[in-house]
Every structure is written in structure tokens, then in C-alpha cells.
């Protein structure tokens, strides 16, 4: 589109002042939806996403799987979440995101422990500012854990991409729009196995390696934020 937008200045800093390997701030809170079995709210930069999880007998009955649970994530964007109003209802992009998020969560959940069960993960993007699929997945896995669903690990995600031809971590909206590539990835941190990975744009093998090693590092910190969010629900505050 507009190739003349400069995403990285002469000091090597990005438009929002971050270094090439610097994340936006992330905050996660659990137990935010009283009615749900589990829930989480994530603020990732200017992204605001809320996730609620319901664990229940699969319905209609013929969708039940006799030896395992099924995971149904539904990624939805509020009309007011983006610059131009998003028309309500699923579209091709949101349906694909729902699918890859469901599949990534399925790898982390011990499905055999919950035969005939459906795990509904409702994701509502209240404000979107690049990286919503990964922020949604990162929050979803916390919400699923918050619901007490048995899991092998907490899925953690991150994105990298290219801005002005350079590999950078955690793309901003401008970098997503005017950059040359977008690489969302999610792993199970205990094993480092990749459960979500998509690329679109122009990425060489070396750039792929740079991007993944940056993301692997960043995901350690995000993992900790996820764990802290779960733990803090059960901790007793001092001085009360």
C-alpha cells in the first residue's frame, strides 16, 4: 500500500517507541465473568479481549464424542472494536481464527478426561489493535484453566513480523498494516511444541529463525503473566 511510511526511525526505534524485540505491556485477570465456569480478561497493548468458558454436556447429542471432549472456540469482534464498524456475525477471517484457536487449545486440554463434554470458549474482542488471535488464545488458555479443565500445559502465544524489512516482535497495528509479514505462533511452553503457526507475507528461512527465537524468549515472560493471573485468584492479599 503506502510503501513510504517509515516504521522504524533512525535510532532503531519503532513508531510507538519500542525496540525491535520489545513487547507491548500485557495484563491478565481471571474470574471476570461470574456466570461462566472460567473467564479471563486480557489487555495486550491496546487490545482488550474478554474470554468466558462453559464446560457442559455436548449438545445436540449427536455431536458428543464418547471418548473425549470437544473444544469449540468462537472468536467474535464487537462492532465498536475496530476503526470502521465491524459488521456483526462470523466472517471468513473470524471463522478461521475460531478454528485455529480451537485446535491449539485441543492440544493442551486432556480431552480424554471429559468424554461427551463440550468446552465452549467465547472470545469477545472489545478493542482490537493487532495481534488479537494470539491475545485471544493466550487469554483463552487461562480461562480454560480457570474453569478447572484438566490441561497438559497453558498455551502461550506471541507474534513477530517484519517492519521496514526488519524482523520485529509483537507487531503494532501500523506494522501489521504496512509491514511485510505477520507470524503468529503459539506453543506448549513445557515442551516447546508449536500448536499454532501461521505466516503471511514474505519471510526467508533466516528471518523465520530470528522471529521464532525472539518469540520463544518473549513467551517465557508471557507464560509467567498467565500463571500469576491464575495464582493471584487464590492468594490472600496482605494487610487485610
Amino acid at each position, binding site marked *: 500500500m503506502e510503501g513510504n511510511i517509515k516504521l522504524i526511525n533512525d535510532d532503531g526505534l519503532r513508531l510507538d517507541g519500542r525496540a525491535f524485540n520489545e513487547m507491548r505491556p500485557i495484563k491478565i485477570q481471571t474470574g471476570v465473568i461470574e456466570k461462566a465456569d472460567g473467564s479471563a480478561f486480557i489487555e495486550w497493548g491496546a487490545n482488550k479481549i474478554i474470554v468466558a468458558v462453559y464446560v457442559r454436556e455436548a449438545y445436540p447429542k449427536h455431536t458428543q464424542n464418547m471418548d473425549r471432549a470437544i473444544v469449540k472456540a468462537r472468536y467474535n469482534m464487537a462492532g465498536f472494536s475496530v476503526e470502521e464498524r465491524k459488521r456483526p456475525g462470523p466472517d471468513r477471517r473470524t471463522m478461521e481464527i475460531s478454528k*485455529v484457536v480451537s485446535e491449539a487449545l485441543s492440544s493442551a486440554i486432556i480431552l480424554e478426561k471429559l468424554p461427551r463434554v463440550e468446552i465452549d470458549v467465547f472470545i469477545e474482542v472489545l478493542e482490537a489493535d493487532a495481534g488479537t488471535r494470539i491475545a485471544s488464545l493466550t487469554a483463552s488458555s487461562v480461562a480454560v484453566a480457570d474453569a478447572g479443565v484438566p490441561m497438559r500445559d497453558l498455551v502461550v502465544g506471541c507474534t513477530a513480523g517484519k517492519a521496514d524489512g526488519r524482523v520485529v516482535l509483537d507487531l503494532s497495528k501500523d506494522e501489521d498494516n504496512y509491514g511485510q509479514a505477520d507470524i503468529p505462533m503459539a506453543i506448549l511452553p513445557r515442551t516447546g511444541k508449536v500448536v499454532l503457526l501461521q505466516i503471511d507475507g514474505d519471510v526467508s528461512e533466516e528471518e523465520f529463525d530470528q522471529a521464532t527465537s525472539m518469540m520463544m524468549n518473549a513467551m517465557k515472560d508471557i507464560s509467567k503473566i498467565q500463571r500469576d493471573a491464575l495464582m493471584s485468584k487464590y492468594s490472600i492479599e496482605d494487610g487485610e
Partner: protein
Amino acid sequence: MPMDSNAVISEIKKGFILDSIKKGKRIDGRSLTDFREIKITENFIPKACGSAMVELGKTKVVAGIKIEEGTPFPDSPESGVMALNIELLPMAFPTFESGPPSEQAIEYSRVVDRGIRESNVIDTSKLVIEPGEKVWMVYIDIDVLNYDGNIIDACTLAAVSALKNAIVPASKYGGEDFKLPVNALPVSVTMAKIGDELVCDPDLEEEQVSNGRITVTMAEDNHIHAMQKGDVGEFSLDEIRKAIKTSSDIGSKIREKYLR
């Protein structure tokens, strides 16, 4: 991969496929990186502006292109439009249903679309008739006629082959017909993880016993233009690097043999 109960595979067959792959051979005799036989029939639908039928083993798809005049999107007034859609026809498989596209069809469409869009096969800036007013709209519709695994690679091959022979029907609108300029020949290579191995171009039975799929689409520049990890399953980073190498090797051979 169809997750329905109709798509079950017997434990004995599953064991047979797994054992065989462990020994480096597949039950149809292919090596782990071999594709099934590829047959491309270009200009299969003369009424379309460009078309191709692709047979990848028993998987069969037809891509047809229609190019029409239209108004550009307001946010990109100086660029033509490309849209790609894959239809999983109910005739193609017992559990495919008519009606709105399934998640599976949408994922396939979007992966194939990204591979073609991001490698700039069509330079949409050259499809402008009057900036902001009139541009060429390139619609790539792909019908899946028979599903025997690996729709993504069959559809990418079909779309690129159809684009290669597409003619912009400008004479319909008072101009002169011209060949649609094609800048790149991307090839997607899809691999299924079966046991600890990655196998290229999985057929239906292989898809049914696999734990995850990975597609890497590269063009002549040997850069990744689309990648998608699909289905439930996990990959190590080493496996992904291996998938990239395989896509680069096998993809360039397919490009030379079938797209040049």
C-alpha cells in the same frame, strides 16, 4: 480432515500405515516426500477467462477464473481486486454438505488465497482501468469434485495454472483482450505428521491417522509466503524447519515440472 464418524479408519489399517511410514515407505509405495501423480489440464473450461483441472492422485479439483470490471475498495483505489474461494462440493465426499461453507472450506480457501496473494502472483496495481473508479476484479473459484486428501496443494496448483492461462476480457468492455500478467509461481507443499515423520501430500487415509498438518507455500524467491499449521497436533521447531526445507526442495521441482 473431516472429523465426522463416516471418516473413520480401522485400527488395523492405521497400524499398517504407521508401521510402513516408520520404515520410510508409504502403503502406496511412495517415499515420505513423494507427491501422488499430478495431472493438470489447462483451459479445461473455455467459457472461463482461465481454468485448470488438477488431479492429485484421486483428489480432483477445477479452478475457473472470471474477470470483470468493478469498483475498487475505497481503501485501495489504485488496485484491482482478487478473491479466491474453494467450494467443498457435497459430491466430493460423503460427509460434505451443501449450504454455507464449513470452517474447513474457509480455512483451505484462506490458506490458498494467502499463498497466491502474498507471493504477488497478480500485480493488482496493473489491473486499474480508472483509478478510484474502475478496476479489474479477478475471481478465482475452485470446485473440489473428489476429496482424497490434500485439498490445499491441489487447489494452489489449480489456481496458479488457471491464472497462467487467464485472459482479461477487455474487448467485452470496448478494449482489447490481454493476457493476465503473472509474476510468480508459488507452490504449496502440505505435510502430515504421522508418528514422528512428516509426509508430503497426504492422501485421505494418511490425513485420518495424522497428528497435525503443516503447509508451506514458497515462490521462486524461496521465501515463505504462507504457512499454516492445521488440525489438532503439535510440531517441534526442528520439524517446522524441516518442513520449510522440504517445501523448498519439493516445491521447486513441482514448479519446474508442472508450472513452467
